[in-house]
């Protein structure tokens, strides 16, 4: 008690955004109470549906979107929530697609809240009605995260990126309701070449919307974002400038708003500890009930995914083939195997390693120790300085289509 510098509270971060999650879960070796629970993930990412009115070209959903008729029903999701709490999961992130496209969202939130999960709604907000928000709050919703594409002053730019006319205006209205109802609000802003210069304005806009937290989340280049990389990648100079702004705003707005930043790993020194380590901190359930170690894991060939319809969540987490395959450090090859950072970044992202090297056990090319690193980093340098191709908007079957026009497209019927 005598040392004023004593840190009594250690912080652990779990950031979910357009492709990255970091999580420091508890050290399993220090707890003997319940071995399965001590090894439990902290967070459940529940992708309730892949339906979404927006068509953002950096969507982290897979290119093959799951259809509405394969979605879990209300009771099945409620069962997932109960099993999650039992397993020792603390937080559930209700995501999609657009989770408010599900009519039973309130029922799912109520169950999650009843079993003691911290509930976080990750929404594009354009479908939300005020009375729905009231119902969600009454059902026990703890937190709302609204994604934005830009500020209201740049609504045209924002709506073009989201592929949804009037989206920016609607988000502003919903953010106002969230604030009025006393629900805590996070604003999530994926950053790319069309808004990288607006980072300061976006942070100030988040403050004006009443947000307690803002995520300046540089796009992570997987799935749809990888398909659109040449359209989205900012230049290194623009990225560095945005990073400086974040640092300055953090000081300026200390105690007013928490600013979290996610770096594009093409411009980072070390790879990110993707998912805080495979099968370690986060578990992901897709709309149809498939259980994944990360939301892009289906892109890796040779993994087998169990479904909550067939097995309990805890059993899948502990023993599922996909989870066991890259859990811990035993699977690593050189240079990861003997690297002093192997339990800091876990060799980076398995999906990126697979996409670029054909073997998910290789070092993520985002790491400077990867033999592919220089060649890979050059891609960003080149693409970011070239004329941006048109977006390939996120739509069912859209990945195979020709690029859409740069005008705001008509509303998706998804």
């Amino acid at each position, binding site marked *: 008690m005598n040392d004023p510098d004593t840190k009594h*509270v*250690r912080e652990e971060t779990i950031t979910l955004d357009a492709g990255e999650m970091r999580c420091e879960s508890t050290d399993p070796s220090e707890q003997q109470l319940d071995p399965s629970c001590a090894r439990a993930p902290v967070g459940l990412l529940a992708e309730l549906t892949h339906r979404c009115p927006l068509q953002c070209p950096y969507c982290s959903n897979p290119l093959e979107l799951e259809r509405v008729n394969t979605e879990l029903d209300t009771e099945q999701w409620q069962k997932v929530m109960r099993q999650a709490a039992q397993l020792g999961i603390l937080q559930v*992130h209700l995501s999609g697609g657009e989770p408010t496209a599900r009519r039973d969202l309130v029922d799912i939130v109520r169950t999650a809240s009843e079993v003691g999960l911290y509930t976080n709604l990750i929404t594009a907000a354009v479908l939300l009605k005020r009375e729905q928000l009231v119902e969600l709050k009454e059902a026990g919703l703890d937190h709302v*995260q609204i994604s934005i594409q830009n500020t209201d002053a740049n609504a045209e730019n924002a709506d073009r990126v989201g592929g949804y006319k009037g989206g920016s205006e609607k988000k502003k209205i919903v953010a106002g309701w969230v*604030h009025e109802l006393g629900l805590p609000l*996070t604003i999530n802003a994926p950053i790319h070449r069309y808004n990288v210069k607006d980072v300061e304005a976006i942070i100030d806009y988040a403050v004006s919307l009443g947000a307690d937290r803002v995520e300046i989340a540089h796009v992570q280049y997987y799935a749809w974002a990888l398909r659109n990389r040449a359209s989205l990648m900012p230049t290194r100079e623009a990225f560095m400038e945005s990073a400086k702004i974040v640092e300055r705003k953090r000081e300026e707005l200390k105690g007013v708003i928490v600013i979290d930043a996610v770096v594009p790993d093409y411009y980072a020194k070390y790879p990110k500890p993707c998912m805080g380590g495979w099968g370690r901190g986060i578990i992901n359930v897709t709309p149809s009930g498939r259980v994944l170690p990360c939301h892009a894991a289906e892109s890796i060939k040779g993994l087998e995914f169990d479904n909550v319809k067939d097995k309990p969540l805890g059993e899948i987490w502990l023993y599922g083939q996909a989870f066991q395959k890259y859990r811990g450090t035993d699977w690593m090859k050189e240079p990861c195997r003997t690297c002093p950072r192997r339990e800091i970044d876990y060799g980076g992202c398995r999906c990126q390693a697979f996409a670029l090297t054909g073997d998910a056990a290789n070092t993520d090319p985002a790491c400077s120790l990867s033999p592919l690193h220089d060649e890979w980093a050059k891609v960003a340098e080149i693409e970011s300085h070239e004329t941006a191709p048109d977006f390939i908007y996120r739509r069912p079957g859209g990945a195979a289509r020709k690029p859409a026009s740069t005008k705001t497209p008509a509303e998706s019927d998804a």
Partner: protein
Amino acid sequence: MGEAGPRIRTIISGESRPTMPRHIKLRHDAGRGRWLILAPERVFDPDDIAVEVLKLCDGVRAVSDIADVLAKEYNAPSDEIATDIIAMLQDLADKGVVKS
């Protein structure tokens, strides 16, 4: 935290009456045998002293009252304890975990 009004930094002093906003949950995690603070996309890992302080943060007690309670319990000078917990609570206020 939902309340209207100017967005200014909360400064913690001996007179502050801190409390945790509704969306911040101090919860005992039986499976892991420890206390946790649940916040949006964050989990905080408080030590025994932090847990004791936060349980006393009810919006009624002043920081100096909390220091007095702990001073008796730990048989330590109240002003030293106050210095320690003000630093801790200021850090938590900047992270949105307590308000005053």
